[in-house]
């Protein structure tokens, strides 16, 4: 009874927030409250016990990394890099798309996806206006950019929430995750570039004009003519990040200095470099929406875990009449599809509980990194599966782009679908391929 009701609350909440993203905060906070109430009344666990099990360390990491991302953003690094990327591409639509896709992968591996997208997309959309692009070009280029964003987020333990959760929960060490996930996501990126820019070739129907190319490069240079990176801000932020990376990699576990403490102190040290700006960021720029959504999801997942449901799911997978490797493949495919339907946060939070069970019989690296890659695949399936999708949609609508014929250009759910299906398949193949290889080699 308890397990069924709590699971129903979790699934209903996740489904509702996916269906009504504009009411997401209200839905998940209400769902979390109901989960606590049901759990208390049914004797599964008291609210204080559920709250004690919430992985606060993950939330600390998320907030700290978000603040560090904001500091780097304030240094104007991304704008200057975007302008240089434009100059390097010489206004050629094909190279522009490739350079920005690779750049987005690198950036989102270091800062959170939303920050990376918010800083780069307005510049890119302006470039699209300068170049005069087609609907097909817009769809595939922005689509590839979002998928690259997801891949970059999965490349490092600090890139995006799923990997942060693995780091914060202690499922994997920083370096353990990095050496496995970075190469795998790089393979995913190479596959994406080949499929989009080698086979689909979205630039094929863009009207190429030397005038447009020259104007694009000159106009962007003019916009950034004297903009310089604020080194006084970037250097302390970069130094703090490097120090954090060293601490995550080198500090022995026995010391008890856990990843969230490293992150907390590192971000605080970086903020000290600009106290006035730091105060502004702390008061106004913390992503309260992300924190609240994850907190509520954690509460519901903890309640469901205490009812024993995840243990039963793990046992059900373990009892499938197929090999252990086959069970892992089933798990990874399920994680990808569930993430596509319910988005990355809920997908990862719920599936990690099952992954912990599978990791007892399979190499943990294969299970956890495979899971992170599958969640990445799922995040790339639909435009609504990752938070960066609706943001890209909103920014594109606001930009009011037009084709050379004057028709309005759109980037919505349906436009993204072919990119999403192809990317989902490609990254899921990388995920399963990686997991099978890791099992074979015992990683």
């Amino acid at each position: 009874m308890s397990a069924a009701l709590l699971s129903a609350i979790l699934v209903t909440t996740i489904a509702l927030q996916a269906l009504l993203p504009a009411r997401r905060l209200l839905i998940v906070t209400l769902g979390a409250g109901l989960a606590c109430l049901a759990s208390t009344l049914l004797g599964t666990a008291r609210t204080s016990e559920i709250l004690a099990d919430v992985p606060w360390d993950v939330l600390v990491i998320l907030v700290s990394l978000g603040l560090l991302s904001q500091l780097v953003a304030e240094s104007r690094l991304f704008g200057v890099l975007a302008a240089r990327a434009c100059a390097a591409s010489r206004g050629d639509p094909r190279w522009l798309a490739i350079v920005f896709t690779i750049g987005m992968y690198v950036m989102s591996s270091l800062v959170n996806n939303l920050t990376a997208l918010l800083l780069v997309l307005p510049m890119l959309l302006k470039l699209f206006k300068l170049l005069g692009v087609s609907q097909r070009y817009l769809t595939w280029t922005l689509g590839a950019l979002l998928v690259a964003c997801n891949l970059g987020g999965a490349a490092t333990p600090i890139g995006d929430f799923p990997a942060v959760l693995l780091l914060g929960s202690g499922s994997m060490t920083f370096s353990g995750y990095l050496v496995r996930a970075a190469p795998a996501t790089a393979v995913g990126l190479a596959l994406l570039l080949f499929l989009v820019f080698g086979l689909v070739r979205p630039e094929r129907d863009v009207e190429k004009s030397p005038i447009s190319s020259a104007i694009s490069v000159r106009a962007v240079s003019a916009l950034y003519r004297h903009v310089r990176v604020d080194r006084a801000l970037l250097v302390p932020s970069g130094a703090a990040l490097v120090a954090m990376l060293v601490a995550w990699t080198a500090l022995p576990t026995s010391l008890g200095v856990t990843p969230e403490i490293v992150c907390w102190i590192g971000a605080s040290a970086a903020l000290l470099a600009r106290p006035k700006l730091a105060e502004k960021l702390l008061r106004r720029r913390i992503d309260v929406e992300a924190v609240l959504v994850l907190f509520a999801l954690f509460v519901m997942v903890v309640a469901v875990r205490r009812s024993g449901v995840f243990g039963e799911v793990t046992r059900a997978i373990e009892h499938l009449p197929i090999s252990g490797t086959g069970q892992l493949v089933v798990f990874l495919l399920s994680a990808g599809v569930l993430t596509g339907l319910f988005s990355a946060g809920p997908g990862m939070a719920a599936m990690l509980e099952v992954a912990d069970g599978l990791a007892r019989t399979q190499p943990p690296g294969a299970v956890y990194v495979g899971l992170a890659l599958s969640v990445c695949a799922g995040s790339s399936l639909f435009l609504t599966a990752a938070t960066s999708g609706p943001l890209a949609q909103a920014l594109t609508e606001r930009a009011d782009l037009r084709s050379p014929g004057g028709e309005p250009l759109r980037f919505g759910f349906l436009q993204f679908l072919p990119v999403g299906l192809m990317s989902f398949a490609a990254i899921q193949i990388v995920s399963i391929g990686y997991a099978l290889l890791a099992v074979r080699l015992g990683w």
Partner: protein
Amino acid sequence: MSATLPRTLEQAYAAVVGELGMASAGWLFVSEVAAHAGDEGVEAFADELGATYPVLDAVARQWLDGRRAPQINAKGALDALDGATHVVIVGLESLHLDGFVAAAPAELGISLLAHRPFPVDWERVVANHAGRVDLLYLDSFQSMSGPKSALLGFAYGVHGDRTHVPPLWARVVGADVRAQFRSLVGWDALGSEMNVYPRWLTEVGVDEFTHFVGATR
């Protein structure tokens, strides 16, 4: 020198005109069109976009008359501000602002009124001036008023005793504001009359400024 004009030049110009300024963006576009499509291309460009963007049209006509760069009389603008310790700039012309900031003495405070009819990334605008320029907003710019403060607005061409300014200037310079600033300086950023209806701009008398700076010295 015979490249065909792309069909999206209007969208491209609109994308940057807010941040570069109508005349500054005009010179950028006209020079690139000329480089790839010659004077014929510039003429076609002016015919196509001139009615919508009269300042761009005037820049194209100047190009066809043989002028190859804008005239930026930063010295004249600074002379007109003589005695002021702070200037609030109304309107945006990036080439002129660059010249003005470069020539301005370090002790002159420079603020820019952040208000445009086109999209502008104001953070990027001020980032181009390495801390020399800060932003003011319409509801608070009078905090900078005083006997040592001046208003400087960009104007576009002079015909007789009339000129054209962005509507923002007319909105800013009400009877109350006129008395609050040391001087109201107009600066011609175009240097020629417009041949088509001055869309985006409004007509005012040159004598409504306390000083008017021509495009040339």
